[in-house]
């Protein structure tokens, strides 16, 4: 699971208010290179929840992202954004609901967001 996806996933347990973002507990993170596409990245900057991205990246061991979005979209900034958003893969770990503590497992890079009967 890459952070571009993590930035979209919410906890869908009934009654939960604080659905997003899910906290990441990383057990295995791998890096996979992806082609650098500045246009795509600039387009994504408008849609990304920045804090969730920064916190998510930190949980996966990457601390280079600035806390605040920079007004100057410098090349080096975009490269860091690119790396965090697209190149870090959570292979094994959990996504944790901030409100309930419920853990959604991530196995072989695939998050499992299925709810139990009593959570619906």
């Amino acid at each position, binding site marked *: 699971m890459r952070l571009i996806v993590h930035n979209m996933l919410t906890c869908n347990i009934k009654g939960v208010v604080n659905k997003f973002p899910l906290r990441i507990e990383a057990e295995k993170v791998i890096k996979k290179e992806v082609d650098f596409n500045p246009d795509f990245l600039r387009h994504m900057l408008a849609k990304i929840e920045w804090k969730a991205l920064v916190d998510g990246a930190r949980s996966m061991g990457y601390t280079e992202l600035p806390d605040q979005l920079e007004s100057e979209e410098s090349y080096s900034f975009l490269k860091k954004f690119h790396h965090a958003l697209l190149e870090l893969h959570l292979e094994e770990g959990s996504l944790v609901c901030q409100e309930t503590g419920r853990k959604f497992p991530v196995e072989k890079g695939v998050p*499992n967001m299925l709810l139990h*009967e009593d959570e*619906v």
Partner: protein
Amino acid sequence: MKATLAPSSLISLPRHKVSSLRSPSLLIQSQRPSSALMTTMKTASRGSVAVTAAATSSVEALREGIAEFYNETSGLWEEIWGDHMHHGFYDPDSSVQLSDSGHREAQIRMIEESLRFAGVTEEEKKIKRVVDVGCGIGGSSRYIASKFGAECVGITLSPVQAKRANDLAAAQSLSHKVSFQVADALEQPFEDGMFDLVWSMESGEHMPDKAKFVKELVRVAAPGGRIIIVTWCHRNLSQGEEALQPWEQNLLDRICKTFYLPAWCSTSDYVNLLQSLSLQDIKCADWSENVAPFWPAVIRTALTWKGLVSLLRSGMKSIKGALTMPLMIEGYKKGIIKFGIITCQKPL
């Protein structure tokens, strides 16, 4: 100890109620197990814990059944048919015997015709984010993401499918555009209004609660976004008809068992649901004639040497699935099974 049900127990859901849906409230009502059903479940799970536990775990049992079915059969399907797990779209009455690649093209055409029917092709530039509900191994997602340059997320109950879908995306250098998760279409892990296009290609058949399924599709659609549902349905009921004929229902029940389909409804039922949720520009069509060559072609590939060997290797679910395919042909021929498309737009 959780009482797990065999899929056959699910078939005793009051099917006549499910088939004769006229209003969303009826739909929701029919999904609660009747007292007759509770007794059946009690008998089926003799010696295990409370009946209420059995009743509530039926949905989980269905989900597990679907996941296991696709965990087992996806590899086989992909080996023989490739990464699109849906019907091809053909010109009606085309008597030409198509090659394998002809059928593959027909499957691509199904995607294109669906997009065109929904009016999406004219509005390409507006499609930025897509959700593929019941994504299989991601054929539609990767195709649509490439076509529109859009981001696409797919959800499936099968971990095997999700992994394979991600691997194929990586192999096609689409990892930055498409990704796949295990999630329930009835409880999508996304915020309201996320997606410009909500795509459900032949997954509606698996949903035990059609009202909830449609509500979720609508919820995650962005204002102005489009919803496309392509699904197997049963024929529309005539005026005054409360349910399908018993022999028709019997045919569908036999298909349900093997393919883990909990309930059939009609195209009209979907239209009514969408109307009740105030969707706009609701359109539907019967494409049964356009998919007629599909099942005979699937059977032909199953009967090749490669097909038979692969089937035997895959396991019982695959074999049972193959044996059930003639029933699909019978269902289409007798006008019980329809291949429907229903599309609409969420108001701004």
